[in-house]
């Protein structure tokens, strides 16, 4: 069973060409990861604020969530190769396809938060509004986190190997986005919980990203290379600056709150781009696909190849 062809530890490939295909997704997808997270977490923020008696924050978060819920499907449909067939997503219910599950979650979440927002504007049918708000609150966290599963459920090394952390990173990023967006539009007096959420989200997401890169070992380097690195630095810089501004001056100064909230939102968008770009980079370079699999083979063998019985 000894490998007759292995010459040293140098990786071999077919003219350095990729083994797997890069995704075909374009800018709409990372943007949607941001808007979907914003929508999902805003629905939860709105309901929490209402329960805490903070009507101003509740209403603003509801509108922000509904707006993000409205933009999200538009982004997704625009990325399709055949946009006019978008409704084919809903012709089946399929637990093995995170994209199919996500389409249903987005439909429920968007429908519910849209209904709640319209009824809030109109000031009518309060029971229906409360019910719709409750549905959006339950669907929201799923909407904010399923995208982590969506990218992890591929053969892309930087995504699949990060499957443990990605939903948590996306959850933290969504919390930060929702808190920051609300801080922009709500008077600092009423925006305390939103600011705390934004700061906590930024901190949690930074720690989780760091932990993920460490756990990934050598593969973690794709998150620190090329386009991913540029977005990563931008995400860290914008997030830290925005969070610091919100924490230190956000309570007193409206201008600081607006600026801080905007910076954090921009940082969260960059974070989604970091993950997006890292995936492409790890798919493009065959070493990330081959080396980890080859190591697996050397460690425990593989059933993918059957070598002649030399005994």
């Amino acid at each position, binding site marked *: 069973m000894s490998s007759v062809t292995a010459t040293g530890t140098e990786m071999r490939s077919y003219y350095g060409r990729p083994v797997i295909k890069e995704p075909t997704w374009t800018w709409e997808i990372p943007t949607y990861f941001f808007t979907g997270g914003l929508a*999902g977490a805003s629905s939860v923020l709105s309901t929490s604020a209402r329960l805490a008696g903070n009507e101003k924050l509740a209403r603003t978060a509801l509108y922000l969530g509904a707006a993000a819920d409205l933009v999200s499907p538009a982004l997704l449909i625009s990325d399709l190769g055949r946009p006019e067939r978008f409704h084919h997503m809903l012709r089946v219910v399929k637990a093995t396809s995170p994209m199919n599950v996500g389409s249903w979650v987005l439909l429920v979440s968007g429908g519910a938060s849209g209904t709640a927002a319209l009824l809030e504007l109109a000031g009518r049918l309060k029971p229906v509004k409360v019910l719709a708000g409750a549905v959006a609150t339950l669907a929201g*966290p799923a909407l904010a986190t399923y995208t982590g599963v969506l990218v992890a459920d591929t053969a892309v090394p930087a995504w699949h190997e990060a499957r443990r952390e990605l939903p948590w990173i996306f959850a933290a990023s969504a919390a930060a986005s929702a808190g920051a967006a609300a801080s922009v539009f709500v008077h600092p007096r009423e925006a305390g919980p939103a600011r705390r959420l934004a700061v906590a989200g930024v901190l949690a997401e930074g720690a989780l990203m760091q932990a993920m890169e460490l756990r990934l070992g050598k593969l973690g380097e794709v998150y620190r290379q090329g386009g991913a690195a540029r977005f990563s630095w931008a995400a860290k810089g914008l997030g830290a600056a925005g969070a610091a501004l919100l924490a230190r001056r956000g309570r007193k100064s409206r201008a600081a709150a607006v600026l801080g909230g905007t910076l954090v939102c921009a940082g969260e968008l960059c974070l989604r781009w970091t993950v997006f770009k890292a995936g492409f980079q790890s798919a493009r370079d065959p070493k990330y696909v081959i080396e980890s699999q080859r190591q697996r083979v050397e460690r425990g063998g593989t059933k*993918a190849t059957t070598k002649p019985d030399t005994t």
Partner: protein
Amino acid sequence: MSVLEQTSVHPDGWESYGDEQQERVGFFTDTSVCIGCKACEVACKEWNLIPADGGAWTGESYDHTSHLGANTWRHVAFVEQEKPLVGLLEAPAAKPPAPGDKTALPSAAPGGNGGTALRWLMESDVCKHCTHAACLDVCPTGALFRTEFGTVVVQQDICNGCGYCVPACPFGVLDKRHLAPAPDLPAFAKEDGRVWKCTLCYDRLKGGHEPACAKACPTKSIQFGPLDELRERADARLEKLSAEGWNGAQLYGRDPEDGVGGFGAFFLLLDDPEVYGLPPDPVVTTRDLPQMWTNMLAAAGALLVGVAAAFVGGRS
């Protein structure tokens, strides 16, 4: 989540056909007899009406299509190596084979060519029609389906070009079709936007014919038939090549216990898979999906609690 169980060696969904279920068929591509003529590439294009692509001078031996994709469903890989096809690998050519060394067959040193032994590997690559197919699992529209023959096919009237199957495939088989703008050809005036791949000539199978590539192959490098029979044939072939001392001979995707449950189209290679651009240990990504869903629910719950916690304590 029984659909996610990976224990069965039967293709997911195949048995749901009941009376219409057919014997599972596939390809055994024996690269040891491939001559790199690309008749398979051409026959595939002609039968399936695939638009032109490739044709570039890559400088990578005789390869000019480089990889499988939306417009290349058979791809012939060419690898040039400085090692003999049969016999001693690292032997200094000047040294005569030791007596009794069974790896040094008479054909091992063709003409005793003094260390310049060259072998030219060719392999006709194709969609593997996996037993557990990631593309099929992740397809959100149901456009990808399991046929009654156990193969995996894209329904072109359903596919909306979401592209999820493209990075899900551990072999990089599928891709979205892009066409050069051709205003004078109305059929190709618009971007296609859908995902395409080998159908194992589903239409020909329905008509009782073998796929176009297998039909066109002049050396029987591409063999079509019932999968069980092909596996037996492949085992016998591997045994023969091994007895003759061929270097690196190995079957790829033959074992139903591998990461994708065995390939419907498997190979006999003469070197490790990665040398041909194939993954050495492919795994169907959805194998980990149950844990991923559980993990996601935990993260979603944490988000719910975390947001609520922002309202507890603290100054407003």
